[in-house]
């Protein structure tokens, strides 16, 4: 019997499989299909201080081996999430939730995290400094090491929960950003968010997405994510949640060998609503084939 449990900065998960924020809503649609308690955790839809509609239509485009999205952080706002969505999620998932936190200023990040700190259902704060689909006056905290460090400090000051900074791949050196977050007190790193992309409609000769650009996800980005997880594992001594194009139990093992302690599954949920369930079910077989009794043995295995 393979031991699949992992620990993320002291938060115990029964396995490393976590649906990624923005691909799983608040879990309700998937709970109609399978028991969510088979998951390690799930990272619910990113939350901002105020309700947001997000971008206009169209928000979705096909891509080779993947997709573009420009949803733009649609959510009902932190107060509604805490009052309605978190109690609903507690009914369908008993483990610790991961709260993905958005923001447009240091104060907003801190205020959102302060409010979520009071929610016992939330085990980890995943601070999104990497959404490519919102325009905060040109400022993107995840693209500058100093800004990333400032957000980390502001959030750490208001919560005792583990803080994982979710990084963007749209930078020259992601390891430098990760180091800045680590030095500022982050408890872990989550990477990668989507890669900035664009599709153009040949008929209209215009970008398909109303936002013009969108975030690329799906199997197309998997090798990029593996490489960046590798880089960050070399750079910091923090637990890593690997994310980007994971579609199978084999992909989970590969991401862990690159350095991840746990793994998020994103776009695969949208194509196959049973993706995470199937990955969890296939994981013991993959571990057996690799000859490991504890899945944690895989983490960073490719660096040895």
């Amino acid at each position, binding site marked *: 019997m393979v031991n699949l449990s992992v620990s993320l900065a002291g938060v115990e998960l029964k396995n490393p499989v976590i649906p990624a924020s923005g*691909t799983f809503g608040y879990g309700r649609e998937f709970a109609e299909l399978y028991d969510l308690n088979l998951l390690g955790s799930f990272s619910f839809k990113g939350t901002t201080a105020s309700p947001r509609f997000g971008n206009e*239509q169209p928000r979705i*485009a*096909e*891509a080779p081996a993947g*997709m573009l*999205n420009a949803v733009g952080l649609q959510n009902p706002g932190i107060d509604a999430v805490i009052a309605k969505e978190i109690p609903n999620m507690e009914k369908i998932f008993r483990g610790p939730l991961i709260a993905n936190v958005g923001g447009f200023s240091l104060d907003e990040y801190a205020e959102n995290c302060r409010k979520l700190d009071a929610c016992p259902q939330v085990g980890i704060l995943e601070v999104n400094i990497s959404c490519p689909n919102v325009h905060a006056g040109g400022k993107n905290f995840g693209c500058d090491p100093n800004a990333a460090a400032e957000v980390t400090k502001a959030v750490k000051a208001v919560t005792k929960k583990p803080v994982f900074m979710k990084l963007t791949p749209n930078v020259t050196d992601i390891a430098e950003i990760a180091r800045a977050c680590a030095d500022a007190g982050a408890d872990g790193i989550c990477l990668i968010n989507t890669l900035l992309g664009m599709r153009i409609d040949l008929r209209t000769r215009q970008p398909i997405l109303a936002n013009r650009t969108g975030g690329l996800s*799906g199997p197309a980005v998997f090798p990029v994510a593996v490489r960046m997880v590798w880089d960050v594992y070399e750079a910091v001594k923090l637990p890593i949640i690997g994310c980007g194009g994971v579609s199978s139990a084999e992909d989970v093992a590969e991401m862990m060998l690159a350095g991840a302690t746990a793994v998020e599954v994103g776009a695969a949920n949208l194509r196959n*609503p049973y993706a995470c369930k199937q990955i969890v079910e296939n994981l013991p077989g993959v571990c057996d084939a690799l000859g490991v009794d504890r899945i944690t043995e895989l983490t960073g295995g490719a660096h040895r």
Partner: protein
Amino acid sequence: MQKTVLKMAQSRRLTRDVWEMVLEGDASAFTHPGQFLELSLPEKFLRRPISVASYTEDGVLLLVRAAGQGTRELVTAAPGTEFDTLTGLGNGFDLKNHGEKPILIGGGIGLAPLYGLARKFVGGGLFPTVVLGFRSAADVFYVEDFTALGCRVFVATEDGSLGVKGYVTDCIRSFVPECNYGYVCGPTPMLRAVSVLPQLSDGQFSFEARMACGFGACMGCSIHTVSGAKRVCKDGPVFQKGEIVW
């Protein structure tokens, strides 16, 4: 929602770009006309959402406009080709609250879900009036199928090559001013034009959107409504007239 495998039974070309397809398999997840399915196509990451024209327990009838490479491959797939499919998606039309004099209004490929709706109405003894709009006579399809159900059918073409010259709205104003409750599906400009016809006190409008998941998880297809953001795939695709923000 159900994840299942549907198998191509037959397909035939109806116009230069519209095909009729019959897929066999478990279609028990469908409960209302106006619902849709999502087919997985080879070498495409996202499934393709397609409105269901009608369904039985054992299969579905689809009317598909082959607009891109993916849908062209779909409609020309050999009999026996299997498609991984999500079935029973969306809310579909509400048949109960149909007002006094319901009218079914379809634009182009938007007539697809109205066919199943008309069949349900006729099965219940109600024979709705149907108005169908097309670009030209060469694009006309399925008119005789609605007629065969016993419905009174009016056709409008933009160039006047068949039926009334103009749009469905011109046809409704001229020929069926008494109808006051619409079931409407077609391009968004058509939906908007129909919604402001003063004779239609109420109605149900079926929307299209680019989707990723098709079952409410990703918020990729959200639109504005009077009660906030709604997902076309899960809260729709059919919305009551009073909900819609144009």
